């Protein structure tokens, strides 16, 4: 029982960083809902898989290769494609992003085939192991998930709060026209924001790939997860993303333990729908 709760909380940290990426893109790029976020997660999984099999790296070290690549992909996507529809209202930008997600997903499908893959066999030193703490036995990878998620969130917090680019991103999210007067190019900031969001998704993807199996078509599941996270926790808040991730992880773990995995997703989506209707700004609300 306590194992189930802990596993839920720990894997919820990973959902939290995926949701944080979505939330960052939503607030940073003028309410752009990145519906290709799930595909970015799966892209992270597969790029890590390729790095691991080709360069024989450890999956955790593959982040050093995967994250810069995904950052460049995200940067290029926003700079060359999405920036051109920024004048439209937020819902009007969705078809374009949908098309991008479709291209990424089916590119992966053609390249790797539809079979499920996992990063676990490439990291036998820690991924397969269990760890016993105070009489509670947990798979070791869940602990790594949570520690990495916390580290990533603290890193994003420091980045947004104290670096120049981070402050420029926050300023752009508040007023994209005025920042131009202060020497910040808003379109460039959008591109960097999208890159960081995609990096967070891909980082989540690496840990998801270490924890579970993945397929090219799993993008929609992770988009649903990330959306639940930001709706439950609140859009535009790092704390909210963590809380939302933990709630989603807990609901998933408890519901699949007591009722069944299909109903776990059903309950998660129902809760999301109810919160979306009653309190769409989430638990923590709008704060960057």
């Amino acid at each position, binding site marked *: 029982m306590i194992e189930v709760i802990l596993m839920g909380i720990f894997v919820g940290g990973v959902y939290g960083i995926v949701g944080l990426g979505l939330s960052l893109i939503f607030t940073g790029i003028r309410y752009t809902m990145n519906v290709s976020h799930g595909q970015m997660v799966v892209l992270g999984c597969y790029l890590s898989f390729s790095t691991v099999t080709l360069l024989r790296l450890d999956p955790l070290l593959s982040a050093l290769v995967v994250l810069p690549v995904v950052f460049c992909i995200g940067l290029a996507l926003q700079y060359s494609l999405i920036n051109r529809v920024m004048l439209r209202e937020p819902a009007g930008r969705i078809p374009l992003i*949908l098309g991008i997600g479709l291209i990424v*997903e089916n590119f992966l499908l053609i390249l790797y085939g539809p079979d499920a893959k996992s990063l676990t066999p490439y990291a036998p030193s820690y991924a397969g192991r269990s760890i016993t703490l105070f009489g509670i036995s947990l798979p070791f990878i869940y602990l790594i998930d949570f520690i990495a998620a916390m580290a990533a969130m603290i890193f994003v917090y420091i980045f947004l709060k104290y670096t120049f680019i981070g402050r420029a991103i926050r300023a752009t999210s508040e007023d994209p026209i005025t920042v131009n007067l202060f020497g910040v190019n808003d379109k460039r900031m959008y591109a960097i924001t999208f890159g960081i969001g995609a990096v967070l998704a891909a980082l989540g993807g690496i840990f998801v790939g270490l924890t579970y199996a993945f397929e090219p078509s799993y993008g929609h599941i992770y988009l*649903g997860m990330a959306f639940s996270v930001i709706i439950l926790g609140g859009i535009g808040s790092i704390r909210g993303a963590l809380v939302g991730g933990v709630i989603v992880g807990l609901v998933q773990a408890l519901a699949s333990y007591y009722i069944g995995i299909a109903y776990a997703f059903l309950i998660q*989506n129902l809760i999301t729908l109810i919160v979306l*209707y009653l309190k769409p700004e989430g638990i923590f609300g709008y704060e960057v």
Partner: protein
Amino acid sequence: MKKNTVSFENIKLSKDIRFYLIIGGIIVALLVPLGLGPDWITLFFLFFTYTAMAEVYNLLSGYSGMLALGFHGFVGFGGYITAIACTLWGLHLLVSMFISGTMCVLLALATSFLIIKMRGLYFAMGTLVSASVLFYWFQGWSYVGGGYGMPIVAHVTVYDLYYISLVIAIASIFVAYIIVQSRVGLRLKAIADDDIAAESYGVDVFKTKLLCWVISSFFAGISGSLYFIYSGFISPAAAFAFYWTLSSITATVFGGVRTILGPIIGAFFVVWLRQTFLVEFPGLAMLVYGVIIVAMVLVFPRGIMGYVHAFLTRRKMRGP
């Protein structure tokens, strides 16, 4: 004033031509099964089914501006209701199709208070989450076979389905045309441009959106039931596939948003791609869908029909 009369005559003439074209098209469509093989019949059956879907999708998300990302929820729900009525209860095909359409309307009415109140992005994501709720509900429901799905036993040939789908497609085009030409269409366009301004001018936003929502749910459900009768098997992953929304968006964006003819052209293109690639190279067809969406949105945002309209009006302006 002179210009007005000229354009008036032009419209009258073009309406006549259009009338004969429509009648001719229907007669040809009725006679097609006599001369063509089953492959072509299947292609045209899918074309009509996708046309009905794309036409109401255009009505919902093009004219009224409510981007419904959870459109596949209705398609899958309609398919499942038909499967239940047809296979488990042993009802006649047409009766079960009618039941599935009615159930979709009831579902749309039941969810309307929850979903139509949401605006813009929240509507898009709200419908997507609702479709996920339906998906996981049917996945856990053992009466309809859970995650494995169930076969649909309906003793029909593809020729019967061809005629049924032809009727459905014509009905959907007709309904969309009537709505767009009437005052409701004007209200829809006003809502799509700015719903707060429309409300302040006395448009009942909720009722107008509800009308669109219900009509599109009806036709989406019927198209879903037609498709799954044709495929003979239904599973949650196939019924509530995001593919339905994506193909409707592709058809609408390719043919031209906010046109009546556009979704028809788009649907034909989508079905042609599907029949050519989807069976042998499943990734490639969807990749092309994605490329088309991106290219059309960026380069030709008005779609094919938008440019045809622009071309015709330019010629009309230039005079004979």
